[in-house]
């Protein structure tokens, strides 16, 4: 899909003129859009694969602990930056912690993406009824 992306000067605002991935379309296509019960039927399968675990619940013990650890680590970075500590000790420890926390967070997201991917991948062979 020839979707052009551009970013704001500082890079904090990203634009896309069209939906360009599952994350963009899942909600608007599955939960929204025109439905007129009396005249049409909605008939589809595979939604479970796409939506299971999509909504990450923030309030979990797992999240609490990650947040606590990350805050601690961000503190340490701030302190070492402020005091200009020699890199040998401080950095080694920080990057270790960072790797660990990032790994945990991204691991969660990867699991979700995998699930989404699975939904697409499984069905791609026999799905050409309605398009392209």
């Amino acid at each position, binding site marked *: 899909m020839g979707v052009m992306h551009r970013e704001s000067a500082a890079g904090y605002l990203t634009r896309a003129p069209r*939906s360009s991935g*599952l*994350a963009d379309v899942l909600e608007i296509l599955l939960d929204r859009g025109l439905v007129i019960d009396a005249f049409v039927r909605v*008939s589809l399968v595979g939604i479970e694969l796409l939506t299971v675990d999509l909504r*990450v619940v923030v309030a979990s013990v797992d999240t609490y602990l990650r947040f606590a650890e990350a805050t601690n680590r961000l503190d340490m970075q*701030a302190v070492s930056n402020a005091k200009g500590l020699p890199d040998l000790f401080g950095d080694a420890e920080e990057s270790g912690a960072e790797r660990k926390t990032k790994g945990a967070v991204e691991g969660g997201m990867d699991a979700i993406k995998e699930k989404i991917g699975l939904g697409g991948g499984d069905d791609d062979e026999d799905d050409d009824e309605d398009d392209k």
Partner: protein
Amino acid sequence: MSALYLYGVTRQRELPQQLADRGLFLVEHEGRAAIVSELDAAPVQANRHNLLAHADAVEELHEGGIVLPARFGTLLDDHDAARELLALPDIELLLERHRNNSELTLKGTYEETILAEVSRPLEPLREAYRRAPTLEAGIALGEAITEALYNRRARDLDIVLQRLEPFVGDVVVSEPLGEYGALDLALLVRRDAVESVDAALEELTKELSPPLHLRLVGPLPPYSFVSLELPAPV
């Protein structure tokens, strides 16, 4: 049994060649048109390929004039059913109401540094966790951070909504996705106000970024603003 897959409803017009090449065609009735393709077998697979194909078709067509996008997986029995649908007064009403409208979706996420910001007032809990990083201390601190993050999200959402208010006809607010999710909005805007929304958001990032990152998608067909509650026929 064959059926018609419904992508959406639009005004009578020419279908772009690349959509016709994919088997899409229009069933017309009194100046309105159902965007459909033949479907051999139901149900429709809700997979990446089909979802993106549906979005691609309605978004492509919406560039040239209003499209009321159908919910994914919507089927019509035949051409007559399509014409009956097009004859509904509410369809004309929606086409007219959204004549110059588009949807923009806006999603926001925070950088991890948001945690340091929101936990600044939580020094006693942070100190306790630094001193003894036990499970209990971690949960107590994390829970407080999570609450502070919710409050920050609510604050930023207010700021964004307030700033966009002059350009937005309607808005659907959803729970943002993920631990660092900040906001998830569907905005109904006039086509000629899209640039203003863009500019307002650009201004906003000067205030709220970092740690806020925004992603703006559109102009799209008004996916989130076409709900139609009709009683079943007697």
